[in-house]
């Protein structure tokens, strides 16, 4: 079964992706999603960001299901 999820990019990550969101991305878990995104946008490989699933930060691989919203959030430093 295809898991269709939405991915949001914040801050300077959109410099790499050129879009703020991707719809209908297929990935079974966050590790697979990262692998997919890193292939599509190699700059993300070395970028600093954390991942949130449905507005909750995660710090280990997390299973995804259809309708989930995954956010990639980098640190900001400007002031």
């Amino acid at each position, binding site marked *: 079964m295809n898991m269709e999820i939405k991915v949001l990019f*914040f801050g300077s990550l959109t410099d790499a992706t050129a879009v703020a969101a991707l719809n209908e991305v297929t990935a079974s878990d966050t590790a697979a999603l990262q692998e997919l995104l890193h292939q599509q946008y190699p700059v993300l490989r070395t970028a600093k960001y954390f991942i949130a699933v449905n507005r909750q930060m995660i710090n280990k691989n997390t299973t995804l299901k259809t309708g989930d919203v995954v956010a990639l959030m980098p640190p900001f430093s400007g002031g």
Partner: protein
Amino acid sequence: MAMNDRYIRQVILPGFGMDAQEKLLAAKVLIVGMGGLGCPVLQYMVAAGVGTIGIMDGDTVSMSNLHRQLLFHAGELGQPKVKLAAEKMKEQDSSILVQAYPYALTVSNAAEVVADYDLVIDATDNFMAKYLINDVCVLLNKPWIYGAVSQYQGQLSVFNWREGVASDQLQPINYRDLFPVSPAPHEIATCEEAGVIGVLPGIIGTMQAAEAIKIITGLGLPLYGRLYNYDLLQARSYEIAIVKQEDPVKIDQAFFEAMNYDLFCGQPEEDPDMHDIEEINVDTFMQLRADPDVFVLDVREKHEYPAIDFADAQIPMSELQTGMAALPDKSICVICHQGIRSVYAAQLIRARRNLTVYSLKGGLTAYFKKES
């Protein structure tokens, strides 16, 4: 206190009263950075009646500051920001004590300055200062309010707020739970490089001031444990619940003293590739450790388990500054429990010894997972 009409419109608010006003008067707030964020923070802290305010910044006013730092004007170019700001705040309300620190926060002055305040507001524009504020506030058990901007977006959160956790035994969420390792130089562009729209730090700084008033008075629910992201172009906010790291960086005196914030957080004038550490996976690690020209360094503390037999040396992170001279002139592969401390250690070694340095991604946890 001699009550006058100055605060009457907030004192009559439901839940506010003289009680909250007196808490503001008794409060001591340190604002680090007197730029786009710091200007509105300071103005609202003074206007709200916060009794003692420290302002810290080593910069002088420049023309490119003026579109977002509204305390200053073109006739003041080249003058120290905190001196000007303190003078202006005296005109706004001479009963407020504004203490100016006309220099940057550093590892050697941080603890002494911060110790005199109850709450720190991060209005800085660089990672070095943000990590330094975080670590010194954790060490001294002070809450701090994070604010930052990037082009058209801003971030805000409250860290290390003791009242946010149920038990004294629990460590409140801090900035290193969000981003354990600081970005390499140039990895994240500064305002100078990437640009910023003037009104954005005005919005984020004003929100930081609002959080400060809530923390001081006990009103409402501070933005603790939540990262608030504001997108000015879309006029949308996005909030993320922060989760504490399972193996958090232990911020103690030894860690604080061992950190070189200038090196780790990257100053703009440095070589951008200088501290970009290659993180290797377990398969690559297995190849490297078999190579006699690669030296495997374990930076875990002596009490950490499990014991391993494949490290060429163990120098705990807390002793690395002094122990580094013992490293051979070989490529160094640094390992630790989770692969976070090893990145710091690798950065430090690269900076001091100029050797090729790797860090095992995921640390020994990833190694043993692969082995089993």
